[in-house]
């Protein structure tokens, strides 16, 4: 069986990276988290704009997102920085890290006596964590420990012809190898419900697929009104797409051809091996956060117009859909699926993606990692703040 060299965790998961993470439980703690990270090069601050001022549904969603990020397999140690009066529970985040067997600590700014004292204490903890994770060595693990997240952003007319079908080949390979693959962006499944339902492992999953796609269709109409159809399609029609279904087919092909074993919510970790659908937004950066919280150790990101964004703790492999964009943004792109337009076969391209996934999970850095394309975390919300 094919193996890779990763970092074994006490909860049975395996990291392909070994990051020390500083994560605020609320945006009010971002300054302290950032100050700690500046003082300890090599640690990853997961800054975000959430943690308070929202209702129950969003608090559940955001709590799950932050808790599950704390136990992403690529996380070697966690320092949670809280304020003290926020709604998201910092203690709960640290507890999740504890249950996942990761070195962890929690500092509350209101308890520690302010930002300077919290920062000073945090720096000592972060240094200690960094020393701990650096002492851990990679070991061999089977590929069924890998969860691959799929994303397309800034799509063009060829995304669905070159990059996405080639990614589908790699998805099929990982599913056959026993791993997990997560297809998301429910908005980009509109029009393909009957096709995805047919691939569901059972009728209950088929029903969930139908329900989540109907819900985003309704939401799109609610947000955009009569513009909904127009907003999704005119550019695509110029690009040769005759219908929303045809465009969506070009998106879902990233997930390959295997059975759909589960539908999970945003930032929920699939319990089943094989292919899952994560019900989530089409907005790239929110999607990446959801995929990371769902346990992805590596992601494939196809792009037509060219998007450089990565994710702080997960290597994101960028696949260009045309040679023109690949050459224009070469420093940001890992692979050129535009070579298919010059005669390379989809199978050959699929093999190259598979090969690069293996190199990356064994430690090779992606362009987004080299360029430190981390940004802040964008987190999906269902409602507005109050």
């Amino acid at each position: 069986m094919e193996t890779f060299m990763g970092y074994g965790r006490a909860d049975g998961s395996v990291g392909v990276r070994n990051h020390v993470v500083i994560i605020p439980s609320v945006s009010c703690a971002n300054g302290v988290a950032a100050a700690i990270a500046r003082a300890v090069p090599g640690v990853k601050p997961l800054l975000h704009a959430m943690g308070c001022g929202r209702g129950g549904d969003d608090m559940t969603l955001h709590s799950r997102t932050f808790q599950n990020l704390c136990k992403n397999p690529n996380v070697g140690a966690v320092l949670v920085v809280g304020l003290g009066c926020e709604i998201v529970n910092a203690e709960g985040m640290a507890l999740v890290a504890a249950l996942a067997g990761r070195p962890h600590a929690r500092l509350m700014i209101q308890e520690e006596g302010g930002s300077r004292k919290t920062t000073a204490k945090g720096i000592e903890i972060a240094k200690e964590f960094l020393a701990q994770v650096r002492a851990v060595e990679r070991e061999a693990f089977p590929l069924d420990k890998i969860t691959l997240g799929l994303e397309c952003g800034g799509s063009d007319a060829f995304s669905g012809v070159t990059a996405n079908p080639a990614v589908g080949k790699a998805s099929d390979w990982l599913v056959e190898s026993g791993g997990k693959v997560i297809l998301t962006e429910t908005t980009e499944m509109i029009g393909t419900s009957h096709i995805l339902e047919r691939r569901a492992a059972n009728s209950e999953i088929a029903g969930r697929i139908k329900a989540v796609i109907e819900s985003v269709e309704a939401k799109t109409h609610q947000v955009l009104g009569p513009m909904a159809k127009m907003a999704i399609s005119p550019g695509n029609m110029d690009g040769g797409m005759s219908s929303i279904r045809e465009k969506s087919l070009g998106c879902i092909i990233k997930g390959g051809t295997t059975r759909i074993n589960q539908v999970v919510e945003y930032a929920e970790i699939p319990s089943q091996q094989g292919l899952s659908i994560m019900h989530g937004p089409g907005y790239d950066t929110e999607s990446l956060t959801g995929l990371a919280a769902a346990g992805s150790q590596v992601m494939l990101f196809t792009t037509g117009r060219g998007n450089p964004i990565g994710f702080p703790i997960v290597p994101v492999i960028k696949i260009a859909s045309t040679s023109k964009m690949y050459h224009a943004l070469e420093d940001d792109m890992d692979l050129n699926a535009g070579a298919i337009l010059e005669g390379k076969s989809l199978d050959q391209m699929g093999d190259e993606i598979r090969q690069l996934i293996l190199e990356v999970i064994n430690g090779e850095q992606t362009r987004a990692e080299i360029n430190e394309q981390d940004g802040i975390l964008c987190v999906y919300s269902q409602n507005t703040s109050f």
Partner: protein
Amino acid sequence: MKPNAIIVHPADNVAIALEDIGQGEDVRTGEEVLFRTISSIAYSHKVLLEDVATGQDVIKYGEIIGQAAEDLKQGEWVHTHNLTIKGE
């Protein structure tokens, strides 16, 4: 010569133009010429691989993307003007 069109799935009856293909020009998805176009095909648009009678399915990604709104011929551009799309 290099291909100027690609078939995404073996069950498809359309190919996607990889470059602008003029009317009456050769279509190649591999080394060999498959047929000639009977309309011009803009890059990233679909060209029919075979004749499709009115009401018959047009297939891309191995899935039905619509039905021919009229009798369509091999080498013809297929898009919103000659495709019936149900269920949207």
